[in-house]
């Protein structure tokens, strides 16, 4: 981020943007200082209004556990969006994977062999559906929005047919025991989320795969002319997103002890919102895992604080809308401030000066 002075439009690719990789603490977290502050404010509000009920370990674990499913999907979504795409099908893929992994046949197989079969099924279904997304987008050259919207509709329909619209109960005790355990005091779901986030961070910032993702999303033509197989990479991104949906399905199966075609309803909106609030540009080429994780935590804590205070769902909605806007504005101001401090000589940001592209869906904060 920089002062708005030089903010250029996204369409020209000259927009000033924040750094991408960077070392973990000084980089990602520092860059997301505004989000951290927003989260801290939220926690302070929680403590003030709900006291120990908020600050208790149990409650924090509840927040983390609720954040876990959306979080895992959002990590996959972060990759897709940085790579210049979007995946609207995630919620439906979670539903489809959960249903497929809990059909009578799969559960019978799991009983015979090992519950890992259910996990494998979920991941495989998610991955394959992601593969279809990726191939249609990269080789069929369909706009990602439409291709994954079609997948959303189709996958949910398929899940309904498979499940006959029934909620399928997970019977396998091994599965339930494993995923509802709490090693070292933290629930398995939280461990999975943490693991996926860390793997995602390393993959994005420390591997050639991550670097290519930035390149493909930042300037696909330049990436192609630099020798990157853009189409293949695009497919890989959607497969990755599909696999995270499979993981999320397993987590939801553990959390609710069911597989259902209604799982993950509107999850795509939550995930995209978390990714975008975390500072990832919708036009691709820029984004952080840490920002996404913070984004997910902010949304989850928000609902928690609301519920602790017994606020009506309508009032929650209004407050939520306002808070989202405030959080992002805060993030922008803080980032601008940091920039200022780093370069004391620079111009104070003025509204008149530039900042042309407010209209763009992917315009970064100044």
């Amino acid at each position, binding site marked *: 981020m920089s002062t708005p*002075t030089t903010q250029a439009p996204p369409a020209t690719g000259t927009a000033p943007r924040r750094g*991408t990789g960077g070392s973990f603490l000084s980089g990602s977290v520092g860059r997301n200082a505004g989000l951290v502050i927003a989260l801290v404010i939220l926690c302070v509000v929680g403590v003030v209004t709900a006291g120990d009920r908020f600050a208790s370990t149990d409650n924090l674990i509840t927040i983390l556990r609720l954040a876990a499913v959306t979080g895992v999907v959002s990590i996959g979504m972060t990759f897709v969006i940085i790579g210049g795409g979007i995946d609207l099908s995630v919620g439906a893929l979670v539903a489809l994977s959960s249903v497929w992994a809990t059909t009578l046949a799969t559960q019978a197989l799991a009983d015979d062999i090992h519950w890992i079969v259910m996990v494998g099924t979920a991941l495989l279904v998610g991955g394959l559906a992601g593969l279809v997304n990726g191939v249609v987008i990269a080789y069929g050259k369909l706009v990602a929005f439409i291709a994954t919207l079609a997948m959303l509709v189709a996958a949910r329909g398929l899940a309904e047919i498979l499940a006959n619209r029934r909620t399928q109960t997970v019977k396998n005790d091994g599965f339930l025991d494993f995923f509802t355990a709490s090693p070292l005091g933290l629930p398995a779901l939280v461990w999975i989320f943490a693991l996926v986030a860390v793997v995602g961070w390393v993959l994005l910032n420390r591997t050639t795969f991550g670097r290519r993702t*930035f390149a493909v999303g930042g300037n696909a033509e330049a990436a192609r*002319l630099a020798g990157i197989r853009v189409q293949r990479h695009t497919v890989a991104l959607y497969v990755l997103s599909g696999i995270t949906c499979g993981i999320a399905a397993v987590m939801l199966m553990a959390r609710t002890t069911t597989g259902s075609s209604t799982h993950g309803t509107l999850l795509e909106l939550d995930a995209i919102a978390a990714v975008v609030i975390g500072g990832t540009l919708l036009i691709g080429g820029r984004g952080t895992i840490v920002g996404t994780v913070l984004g997910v935590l902010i949304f989850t804590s928000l609902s928690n604080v609301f519920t602790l205070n017994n606020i009506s769902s309508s009032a929650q909605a209004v407050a939520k809308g306002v808070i989202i806007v405030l959080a992002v504005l805060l993030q922008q101001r803080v980032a601008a401030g940091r920039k200022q401090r780093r370069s004391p000589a*620079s111009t104070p940001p003025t509204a008149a000066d530039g900042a042309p592209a407010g209209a763009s869906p992917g315009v970064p904060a100044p």
Partner: protein
Amino acid sequence: MSSGDGALLQMQGIVKTFPGVRALGGVDLDVRAGEVHCLLGQNGAGKSTLIKVLAGAHQPDEGEIRWDGEAVRLTDPQAAMKLGIATIYQELDLVSGLSVADNVFLGRERSRFGLSRPAAAHRATSALLERLGHPEIRPGTEVGALSAASQQMVSMARALSQDARLIVMDEPSAVLDNEEVERLFAVVRDLTADGVAVVYISHRLEEIRQVGDRITVIKDGRTVATGLPARETPTREVISLMTGRTIEYVFPQRTERAAVTAAPLLEVDHVTVPGHVDDVSFTVAPGEILGLAGLVGSGRSEVLEAVYGARRPTSGEVRVDGQKLRPGDVAAAVAAGVGLAPEERKSQALLLGDPIYRNITLSSMARFARGGFLSVRGEKAAAREQTEALDLRPVDVDREVRTLSGGNQQKVVLARWLLRECRVLLLDEPTRGVDVGARSEIYALVRALADRGVAVVVVSSEIPEVLGLADRVLVLAEGRVLADRPATALDEHQVLDLVMQGTPTHTSKGHVA
């Protein structure tokens, strides 16, 4: 030609700072009505920043701007336009989805009761393009479908349409060929004869001599000389003012090559890309530099793209070291040791939002990775080595490429392929927008690479550059090879003659998709 002593425009002590960069540290500029005032300076000296301040696109931190003797504040582009300042920006600033006419009158649309009057706009646009010598560009064509040269003409038409008193041109000739530059100069002379002032920026010093009246030289964001007579000031002096050094603006010595007998490294065999490349064959030996000359639109870029796999030929084949390359597969070409520095660096080569080092290591990532894990430290060290070798400024490899000046961005692209250590290097307009100092360095570099056994193909619209740098020259017209001769056997006039012969009418150069 300069009429009157009263300055039309005076800029004094202009300071402009970007986060972390002081782009302008006190620049003075005064321009008189009816003169062509040339602005010179190295890449990153601050020329474009200065003219953006003048255009109202940037707000200066300090300094004063006087117009007709009165202090003015240019708070936005509209304010500058109202005064009569028209600007042709260095980076094409057109909306590619709109038609030529729409672009020319963007922001000043011809309308009645809010309804646009396309016919009127088309007529006016046609007239302007005619005046610029490009009647073949149709006002209804979408700008995105035009070649870079034609787009430059559209920007020009837009500036002319404003009836301005001062027109600023930031490297307008970079994408033009000789003939088009001549036509541009004719227009400039018309304008100055009418009392319009022109601020002209270019890295081609011979152009300054042809069209300029006075020179202002900027170095590191400060004016180091102003009001120098354009025709009389010796090149040597201008260069030393710009660079602080005395540089011989010459091409590197050709190596005496017995190597011609060596087996060719790159073989291009009857390659055809319908509509662009017509049965082109040539070979390049290791250590040889092949130049491709021709007018804009003659298909030189397409030849390079076909070789590189960025464009799929319908027939013919390309071999590197005897191995056939898979057609239409860039990754295969890169793996075989071919590199391309494309013509449009911003859209085709650079990740503008990424730091310099990532742009440089993009094609050599495998070298810094173990099991897929990257060593960022290794990357940065290698990138730094390259930026130092190319004298790229700023030296900080963490800087976003977007914030670099045009010429330095070009160096980033070159650095990428230098790092890659390719065996075949394809350079499309490698010195476009590059300052004289850096140009000499690039020439030397290319020659040094050739001496190390790299086969180089260079496309340039500057015929002297092709002749000076290359060992052998291929002259193209309409996608066909007209001549294939040693560079020493050709001179500029011969090349131009060849090109003209091969191009029956010059409207056939219609850059229309």
